[in-house]
Structure formats: C-alpha cells, structure tokens
C-alpha cells in the first residue's frame, strides 16, 4: 500500500495541480479531498508567512468563507485576510509580497484584504457578506492574540443581541437567491451552489444555527434535537453527494463551474458509476439522485428556517388558536396537529390536515409536516382504500389552490405514500432539453397550469362537469413514465387501478382512463396531421366522443405542454391546437343534425337503415324513401322509424298525435302533426303550461310536410310520471293546434310568479344570438345562448314563427342554467336569411324574446 501524500511532499503552491492529481489518484474524493486541498494551501501559505515574519507577532493570516471552513474545491476562490497591528505597518509590503504573490501564480481567484481590527469592524458594519464570512474565520498563521481580539469584538458587536437582525439578513438573501435561480430544485441544469437545495442552503442553515443557537455544525444540531436522526443521516448523505459532484464538476470543466450543465450530465453520470439500462439512461439515474438529494436539502432547510422564525418570532404574532375539528387547529395562520401522537391512532388525520389546509388556504406548520413525514409508515392499505379519505382527496384537488397543497403533500412524502404508483416518477429526470422539470414536479406544474386555465379559458372549462377527474388526470397523466416506451397506455392502466382503489364510478374511471391514454393525441394530431381532412376530424370526433371529454382533453393538453418547459408551448402550437379543437367541437356539437359533414360513412349508414326499414315494414307497404333525409334516418333505430311511418297514416284523420313514455332519466314525448306555421311554438307553449322543462329535442320535417318531433322533458314540480296529467296536456295540445287556445295570456298568467323569481348569486350570462349562413349548405343556422327559464323555448319559437321563419331541424341543449339551441331555418320564401337588415332585425327580435321577463 502507498503511504498517504502530505502537503509538504510538494514544493511551492505552483504544485497545486500536481497535488490534487496525486490525491485523486489515491482515490481521495469527497470531503477528504477538500480538506487535503485546504491543508495543502494552508501549509504553503503558512511556511511563506513564517519565512517572512519569523516571530509572527503583530500579524495574523486569516482564512474566510469556504476556505475558512476548509472546504476548498479544485477551483474555489481563496478568501484571505491579512490582519495587522498598526504599529507594525512598515513590515507590511514585504509580507504581502511573500504570502500573496505566490497565490496569484496558481491561477486561482484570490480574494484578499489587508486590515487592522478596527478596519475589519468598519467593513463588517457595512457589508452583510463580510459579517457572514467572518463566521467561518480561521487562523492559518501568525498572532493568536491578534486573531482572538478580532473574533471577540466581532462576537460582542455582531452576534450577541443581534440574532433577529442576522436571521432577517439571511432570509433576505435566500429570497433573492430564489428569485434569481428559481424556487425549485428541479431545473434542467441545477446550480449546485446557488439553486434551491444547493450549498448556499446548507451554509445558511449552519450559519444561522451558529448565530441563533450557538450550534457549530450538523452534529451539534442533531444533538440539540433540531434534526431527528433520520433527517440528520439523510441530510449528511445528500451533502456528501453534492460535495462529490462539485469536486468532479470543477475537474470536468477545468474551471470554477458550479452548474451542472446539460452537456456535462452524461459524463458526470459515468464518473459516478451509472450505466445505461433498458428502461433508464445512466444520466437519468444520476440526475434522479441529484434531484433527490437537493430536494432533501431544500425540505430540511425550509423546515429549519420556519423553526428559527418561530423561535425568534415577534410577540404580536401570537394569536389564539382556533379549533377546526378534533385534533386540528389554526394558530398564527398555520394549520397544526394538536397532538403529534394523535396521528398514530387516527391515520385519517393525514388527509384531513391537507384537506383543512386546502379549505382554509393556510399552510401546514413545519412541526406538523415533520410529524407527517415521521409517521408515513401509518399510511396503509386501509387508508389508501378508504372512500372517505378519497373524497377529501378529490375535494382538495378542486379547491382553490390544489397546487400548493399537492406540493406540501409531495414534500412531506405523503403523496407517494398515498399513491405509491407515483413513487416511480419521484425526482425522475428526463434527459432532453424540453423537459425542464422532473416528472413529479411536472405533474404538479400541470395542476398549476390547469388551475390557471380555469380563468383564462373559462369558456372551455364551462364544458367540464367533473373537474375532479380533470385534475386527477392532470396529476396522473405521466404516472406511466420511467419504464421506457408507451407511457400513456401504461399510465392509463395505472390511473384506472388508482381510480378503482379510491372508489371512482365506472364512467369516471372511463374518463380518467381516456384522458391519460390520449393526453398526447391532440397535440400530435394538431402538429402532424392535415386538419382540412374531414375524415380525420370525424375520426377524432369518434375517438373523443363527447364535448365534455374534448374540453377536458384540450385543457389537459395545454396544461401539459405549458408545464413541460418554455420551449414546448408557444402561439404557433396554440393556434394549431385551437384549430383542431374547434373543428372537432363543431362536429361533436352538431353531430345529429348536420348531414354534409358526415360524408361517406353517414351515407352508408343511411342506406343500411333504409334496407332495415324496408325489411321491417309489413309486406305490401310501399314507402317513399325520398321523404326522409339522411340525418333523420341516422337519428333513430329502424324500429322507431317504422313506428313513425305507421303512425303517420293516422294523421289523415287526426290533427296531432302524442305519445309519451318514461325512460331512464327523463320522459320522452313524440309529437307528430302536419307541419304548419308556429307548430313548434305551440307545442313548447303547451309543455310550459304543464310545467314541463325541455331537456333536449329533435325536430324533423319529412319532405311531405309531416313534422316528427321527439322531445325529452322533465317536470318542474313532480318527479312522478304517473302524477302528470297527460290527458289534459293532450287535450290542450289539440286545442292549441286548432288555434283555439290563448297560449299567450295563459302562459303569462301562469308564469307571472315564476318570472319574479330572484336571481341567484351566479353571474348573469349575457344572451347571444348568431345567424350563420356558412355552416350549412341549405339552411341558415341560428344559435341562441341564454340563461334557462320556463317558457323560453316558446318565446324563441314564437318569435321565429312571427317572422315567418320555418324551422327544419333543431337541437335543444340545456346545460345547468344555460341553454344552447340551434335551429336550421329558412325564411318564408324558402331562402336563407341573407338580407343584412332582416338578419339584424331577427337577431334583435330573438334577443328581446330570450330576455323577456
């Protein structure tokens, strides 16, 4: 075995590189190398110094900063101070020449100052950084008494009684650093020194512990109970890892470089012994370690500073505690667990704490967060399967600030304990220039973006009826990463498993599965496919299937892209995605009315129905298929069309036919009559008279003028089908069609009490009417948006009829308190509504009708 090399084995400071290489050859890395390096510099500085002033009186050579702590990286700055007694001033030039000049030849950055004790104190008064640097002061050579004099004065002037001031200075620097380098440890190219979770965080903590508690290092903090044994071990390991990285990084870059640049990462990974594996690259393994350790440092120092702030807290901050629920209270704007042992007997408190934090908007107190981390082993299968627990979790996802709460859940480790599938992506790096965040942070960032889209894209968000599923999909969409190709499909399977565990309903599971599985579908299609290809849009529409799912997928796509990195989302991509979204939305929105958009497949379907209907009709019955449009045929099953055809024969003797039946969620009406002006208005008027709300309607007119209207209704006053007076309604409908019923005055009497109904707190929706001549080849398309109220459809259709407008098809949609009605119409000459003056008049008339109260 080789004997250890010592500093004196090298002659002069110029041998520094040689010394470092020799140490490295001997396998010395990490903290030992820093010390060896520091000892080497010490040794040569001291011998130069002693040669120049043999007695050493009146002068002291002091190391500051990192050099003071004996943490000297290969290219670290060397902070030196030459302290002198004013009486010895004339010897100064010779001494400076002897000690400092050789340092310059090493090529290192040397920070040096030549000061008396008084000058030091003057400098300290002005400069916070110098005050901090003084904490690490260390005597290399020279007068002990001069050095002690300096440190004693420093202590009495700047430490005793000025702890709060020191803390404030420290916190101010921390915030500055966060602003400059980002709040998070997960940036693509972390700065080992300045980033969150880097060396500065470690040093700030140690300095503050020194000043505030008089604890000189981590071990002392551990003994004083500031760190638990667990925390201490984890922290030390993280610190050691960062030291090795920084050492290596200086070597690799051949200069003082503390940023882990993208191009260095692969080489670093190799140096740390990682190899490429099937599912993960060496560099991804390595970066995962880096992020994990920086996360440890960041979380530990955050907790520490919150602790110190509390210890030095101002008295006026002390307020009375307020109990939120048994075991949980609010004090000084923080959520506290009243008794730390409680969580062991009542593990449901984990989620309750986060839920209360989400509900009240107040963060968890650091001690409560520590308690959560220390007791994570209590998060078991029971808790993960608990419905009650899941309800709280889903509720906090749609609370006002899910991002903040989820971040606390992730930082405490609770999130991965509750959803173990997420542990796979924790701190997981993706080695490319697009993904700025690790996967876990990206998922949280997606939640953050969704949170913002609620306001930015309120229109689209209004389509979403189950926001908790959207946010859950946001949180889980990349859960399948870390296993190689196909993360979307794998993620969907995992998400379904998670959804089942927390007790989602079947349709919720399906939506979640759909969103995760297709989260790249829209952006891929928008950028790689021809959006003018109608077949493609139809295929997309079939795949997405509902407007709500489309809206969810669209929002998720935007949030995902924005949360990936600054280069991924831009106006250009937004424009393509919006185009695709609108095209699919239009197809989905008009799915059952617009013939020409459905092209070939619809034609084939219609032919199939014709064949079927012919088969079903009694032999001998001849039927003229030219009566029926394709979209009519495609809107009903063949058996129903046969019924319509059979019924129609009775219209020779009867004005109107009404059929009603109870279906699963509403009551279905079929009204058939010879078409006449105002027919639809009369039908809707009678329905309103009988307290029936129209939920949806399909309006068709055969070519021979037979109107076939199917209307889904529900009663505004009773849920019992049998209680509805169907006979009376039928009777009045007959009267109305024969024009023997004063609908207007009856409705007015009837609705008077309802019309004075006070408006809710909800914001009023502006009514809107559009008339579009482009959407359909044959008809003008009128769209009416308005708040819903009883009788509104009567008012709209009556107005249309007053203008002599014929309604050929209609689609009635009601969503919550809003109606979206689409009418395909022609004027009384059978033409589109092209005349601008008439168009405007009609628009105003309809606006008046929907606002009419």
């Amino acid at each position, binding site marked *: 075995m080789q004997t250890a090399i010592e500093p004196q084995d090298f002659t002069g400071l110029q041998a520094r590189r040689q010394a470092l290489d020799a140490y490295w050859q001997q396998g010395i890395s990490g903290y030992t190398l820093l010390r060896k390096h520091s000892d080497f510099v010490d040794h040569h500085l001291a011998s130069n110094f002693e040669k120049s002033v043999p007695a050493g009186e009146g002068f002291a050579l002091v190391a500051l900063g990192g050099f003071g702590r004996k943490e000297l990286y290969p290219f670290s700055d060397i902070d030196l101070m030459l302290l002198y007694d004013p009486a010895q001033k004339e010897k100064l030039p010779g001494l400076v020449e002897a000690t400092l000049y050789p340092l310059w030849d090493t090529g290192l950055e040397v920070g040096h100052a030549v000061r008396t004790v008084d000058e030091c104190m003057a400098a300290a008064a002005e400069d916070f950084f110098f005050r901090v640097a003084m904490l690490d002061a260390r005597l290399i050579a020279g007068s002990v008494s001069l050095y002690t004099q300096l440190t004693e004065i420093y202590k009495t002037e700047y430490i005793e009684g000025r702890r709060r001031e020191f803390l404030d200075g420290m916190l101010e620097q921390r915030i500055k650093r966060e602003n400059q380098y980002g709040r998070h440890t997960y940036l693509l190219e972390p700065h080992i020194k300045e980033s969150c979770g880097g060396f500065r965080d470690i040093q700030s903590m140690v300095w503050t512990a020194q000043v505030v508690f008089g604890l000189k290092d981590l071990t002392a903090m551990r003994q004083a109970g500031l760190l638990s044994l667990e925390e201490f071990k984890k922290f030390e390991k993280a610190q050691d890892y960062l030291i090795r990285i920084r050492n290596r990084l200086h070597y690799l870059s051949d200069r003082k470089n503390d940023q882990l640049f993208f191009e260095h990462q692969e080489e670093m990974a190799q140096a740390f012994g990682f190899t490429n594996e099937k599912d993960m690259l060496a560099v991804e393994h390595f970066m995962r370690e880096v992020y994990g350790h920086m996360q440890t440092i960041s979380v530990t120092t955050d907790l520490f500073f919150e602790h110190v702030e509390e210890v030095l807290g101002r008295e006026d901050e002390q307020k009375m505690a307020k109990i939120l629920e048994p075991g949980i209270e609010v004090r000084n704007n923080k959520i506290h667990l009243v008794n730390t042992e409680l969580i062991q007997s009542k593990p449901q408190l984990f989620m309750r704490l986060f839920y209360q934090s989400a509900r009240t908007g107040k963060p968890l107190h650091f001690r409560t967060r520590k308690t959560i981390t220390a007791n994570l082993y209590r998060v078991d299968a029971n808790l993960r399967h608990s419905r009650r627990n899941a309800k709280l979790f889903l509720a906090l996802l749609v609370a006002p600030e899910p991002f903040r709460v989820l971040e606390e859940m992730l930082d405490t480790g609770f999130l991965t304990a509750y959803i173990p599938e997420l542990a796979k992506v924790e701190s997981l790096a993706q080695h490319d220039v697009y993904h700025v965040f690790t996967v876990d942070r990206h998922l949280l960032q997606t939640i953050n973006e969704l949170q913002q889209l609620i306001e930015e894209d309120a229109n689209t968000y209004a389509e979403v009826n189950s926001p908790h599923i959207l946010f859950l999909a946001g949180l889980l969409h990349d859960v399948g990463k870390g296993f190689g190709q196909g993360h979307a499909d794998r993620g969907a399977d995992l998400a379904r498993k998670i959804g089942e565990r927390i007790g989602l309903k079947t349709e919720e599971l399906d939506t979640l599965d759909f969103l995760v599985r297709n989260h790249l579908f829209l952006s891929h299609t928008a950028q790689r496919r021809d959006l003018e290809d109608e077949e493609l849009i139809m295929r997309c529409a079939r795949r997405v299937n509902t407007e709500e799912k489309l809206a969810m997928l669209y929002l998720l796509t935007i949030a995902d892209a924005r949360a990936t990195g600054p280069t991924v989302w831009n106006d250009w991509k937004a424009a393509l995605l919006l185009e695709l979204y609108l095209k699919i939305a239009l197809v989905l*929105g008009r799915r059952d009315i617009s013939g020409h958009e459905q092209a070939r497949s619809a034609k084939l379907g219609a032919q199939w129905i014709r064949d079927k209907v012919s088969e079903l009709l009694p032999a001998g019955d001849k039927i003229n298929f030219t009566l029926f449009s394709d979209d009519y045929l495609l809107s009903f099953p063949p058996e129903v069309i046969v019924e319509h055809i059979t019924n129609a024969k009775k219209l020779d003797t009867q004005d109107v036919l009404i059929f009603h039946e109870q279906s699963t969620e509403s009551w279905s009406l079929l009204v058939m009559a010879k078409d006449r002006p105002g027919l639809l208005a009369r039908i809707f008027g009678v329905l309103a008279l009988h307290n029936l709300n129209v939920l949806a309607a399909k309006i068709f007119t055969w070519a021979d003028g037979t109107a076939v209207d199917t209307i889904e209704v529900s009663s505004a006053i009773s849920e019992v089908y049998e209680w509805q007076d169907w006979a009376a309604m039928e009777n009045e409908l007959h009267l109305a069609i024969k024009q023997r019923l004063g609908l207007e005055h009856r409705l007015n009497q009837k609705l008077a009490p309802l019309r004075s109904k006070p408006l809710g707190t909800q914001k009023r929706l502006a009514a809107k009417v559009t008339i579009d001549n482009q959407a359909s080849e044959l008809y003008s398309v009128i769209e009416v948006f308005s708040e819903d109220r009883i009788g509104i459809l009567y008012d709209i259709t009556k107005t249309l009829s007053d203008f002599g407008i014929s309604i050929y098809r209609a689609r009635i949609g009601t969503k919550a308190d809003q109606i979206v009605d689409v009418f395909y119409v022609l004027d009384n000459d059978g033409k589109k509504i092209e005349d601008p003056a008439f168009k405007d008049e009609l628009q105003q008339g309809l606006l008046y009708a929907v606002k009419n109260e």
Partner: protein
Amino acid sequence: MKKIEAIIKPFKLDDVKEALNGIGIKGMTISEVKGYGRQKGHKEIYRGAEYIVDFIPKVKLEIIVDTPQVDEVIETICQAAKTGKIGDGKIFVLPVDEVIRVRTGEKGKEAI
C-alpha cells in the same frame, strides 16, 4: 449558390424532410412561423365565444444549395408538400454571396 426558402403546412414537414434527404440534402434550418396569404385567417364561433385565427401556423425551411441543384430541390419540395388545397405554401429562391463554415473556415460549395 442559392438559398431556398419554403413555407409549407406543418404536417408536411416530415414528408418534405424525408424527400430532401432522399436527394442528398443533409442540412436545413426549420422554424415555426405564422402568416397569411391567399388562405386568409378566419373567425370561428363556438358556444357563443369567438375565436379569431388571424395568422395561420406554417413551417419555414431554409436550405442553401449549389445552383445546379436548385430545380431538383424545388421539385422535390413541391411534390412532397402538395395537398392540392389552398394554403399549401410557397417557395422563394434567393441568391447567396458566400457560405462559410465557422469551425474550419471553409468557404463556398465546400461549406454547404
């Protein structure tokens, strides 16, 4: 030497790139651009909200080629980028005075 600038539909990028590789074009600069020509922007109305698409997203390719190869490159791009519909794009040919490879200092044809 000429610089060929082609504005094409985004989804045609892969086809065009592949076709150009096929005739030996090894390098190009690609950027995401927006604009309008005969294929004007348009207004979409959905659920009462107006969405105005005033500039249409396109991809711009920039390729430097030796003059004899210009026609072949233009033809290749045309073939690969064509859908036959409005908005298929445009190609511009510009003269280039000099090309210099930064690393080696090579000039002219050698540097392409």
